[in-house]
């Protein structure tokens, strides 16, 4: 049985297709990321899986339970950390955790134990008795994730869990999510390449409501990336040389004062020799490892923005 499975999952809003026939199979205990730009359909997909939105067509199941036919059962199995850190602002950490835990049917003792463990793990114990409206964005985000985990759900939906956080806070949350790998089925949405790359066992790239690529990070990079790139630091690079390069190679970009050349079957030596022959001084030249962003750009023709 899969942790999460979707069957031609579709959602239309007044004729606008937000999610378009998505078929996904997320194995039990797998950490799967849906990567895509804003408006790609990530949150709409999660909202349907959480039984908040009714699919226009198709359906989905969580641990074998249909989200349309048995929503109440599905809700007993899931934990959700929404994109916006939604907390009860005038309640403290303990009270916020108790609310979700007890609505999931946990006893007071169970809630207390789980809350203590989560607050310690998330580094919130010191401020646990303060009303959360006084918290920073990072602290609220950590509490939001703790709230998704307090009922010890088998399936976890994390919608943009590190959105708007500073790199240090982001890293802390990544480490905690990484610890859950194999223990829970996790569907994470993000538009941060490095987040998907660091955390996921498999990644689905979603664009305009469709899953356009699926696989491990390495598979996506090697199988789908036809182009290779090299970055060259130069001097005396004339417009004429640039024009010649543009005509010969697929993509030419200036990145932080350096020249990035991308092309299928790129020949490193040929380019360096060509530049020398045209009187261009080459200070350094290096082949660049493909990134998920390169994959994304190649598949969608778009650039993901932070």
């Amino acid at each position, binding site marked *: 049985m899969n942790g999460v499975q979707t069957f031609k999952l579709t959602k239309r809003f007044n004729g606008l297709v937000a999610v378009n026939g998505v078929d996904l199979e997320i194995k039990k205990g797998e950490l799967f990321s849906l990567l895509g730009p804003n408006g790609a359909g990530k949150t709409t997909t999660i909202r349907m899986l959480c039984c908040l939105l009714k699919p226009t067509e198709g359906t989905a199941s969580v641990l074998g339970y249909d989200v349309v036919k048995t929503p109440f059962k599905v809700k007993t199995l899931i934990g959700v950390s929404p994109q916006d850190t939604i907390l009860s602002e005038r309640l403290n950490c303990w009270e916020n955790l108790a609310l979700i835990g007890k*609505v999931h049917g946990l006893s007071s003792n169970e809630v207390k134990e789980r809350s203590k463990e989560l607050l310690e793990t998330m580094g919130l114990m010191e401020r646990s008795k303060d009303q959360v409206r006084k918290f920073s964005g990072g602290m609220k985000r950590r509490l939001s994730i703790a709230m998704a985990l307090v009922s010890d759900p088998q399936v976890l939906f994390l919608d943009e869990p590190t959105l708007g956080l500073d790199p240090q806070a982001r890293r802390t949350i990544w480490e905690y999510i990484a610890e859950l790998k194999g223990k829970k089925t996790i569907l994470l949405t993000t538009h941060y390449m490095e987040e998907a790359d660091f955390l996921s066992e498999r990644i689905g790239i979603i664009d305009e409501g469709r899953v356009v690529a699926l696989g491990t990070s390495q598979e996506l990079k090697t199988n789908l990336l036809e182009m290779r790139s090299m970055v060259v630091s130069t001097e005396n690079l004339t417009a004429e040389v640039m024009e010649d390069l543009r005509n010969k190679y697929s993509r030419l970009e200036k990145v932080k004062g350096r020249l990035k050349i991308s092309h299928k079957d790129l020949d490193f030596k040929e380019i360096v020799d060509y530049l020398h022959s045209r009187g261009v001084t080459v200070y350094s030249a290096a082949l660049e490892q493909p990134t998920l962003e390169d994959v994304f750009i190649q598949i969608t023709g778009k650039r993901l923005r932070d």
Partner: protein
Amino acid sequence: MKFWEIGKRNLKEIYRNPVLLGFLLGMPLAFMLVFCAAFGGGQASPIAMSIVDEDRSQTSSAFIQYLGSIEAIELNEPIYSEKSQAQEDLEDGRISFYLFIPSGFEEAKQAQQTVNLELAYKEADPMIGLQVKPIIEAVGFEFLGVAPPLNVELKGTESKIKNEVVNFYAPGIAVFGLMILISTAAEIIAGDREKGFLARMFTTPARPSDFILGYSLPFIPVLIVSTLIYLGVGMGLGLTVVGNLGHAFLIFFLIGLCSIGIGMIVGSLVKSESQAGVSWIFIVPIAMISGTWFSTEGMPSAVKSVAGALPFIHAIDGSRAVINGSSLSAIMPDLYWLVGWAVVLFAVGIVLFRRTMVS
């Protein structure tokens, strides 16, 4: 008891928000103090009266002295001898009205002829004329022995009510005050929906009835405290509870539940906190046609029918009746309306919440 957990959360959110709490409990207090103090509580201040004595006789002086002894009147000094001077002061706004005693006043009294007095006031302030004329007529009759043109025989029944005005206003204001719960409940639900909190809670295994009960629960203490404030302050300002205080409390409690139920429905339908605030557009007119501030007797039958179909008029009429001495059986129809409305509103609220949970 999932509703209890949701209720506890809402209770804490309300009671840890001093502005909201102040509004919920402060409004009833302010309403009751302002209305009852303005229209019924305490002794009315005397009316300042200016007089022009053109007659300047012993009789006119005695009449003025007699007027001055009336509690409801305070004579302005000095007494004018020229009407033109008083008229000038009236037009300039230095005085609000004056009583003119013409020459021949003493002679007319002695000859037992018609005595003519003139009360001059600005037409822009007609209430002065309406308030003062009956006093002058009563005083004139007593002092001069002049019979009024119409003799009305009054057959009053001794009333236990100390202040009719307060007994009229207090129940209406209490019901209007409890109508605040409509907008407050609606705003809290709409606010939670706008911020996404409801969506988060909808991913948990809680049922629509848990939400309806969970959102109603925190308003029950507010409802009880508000009702106690209304009754307590009202009694302090002269409200006489002739009937059973518990019955009055029951009616206020039921209309409070109806208001919370309406708030739940409004909160389920609107999309934002600001939209929920629009409920005031309906609250005030409904309060008016339900007899909060005026009797509904003279209203057109269509308006009375609309008011009669809603619960508020039944709460106002019922509470006024039991406070003034009616038994519970006498107001049973009003009670049925209130219970019926409360049940229907909560049932509709649950249905709407179910619809809201999946879009």
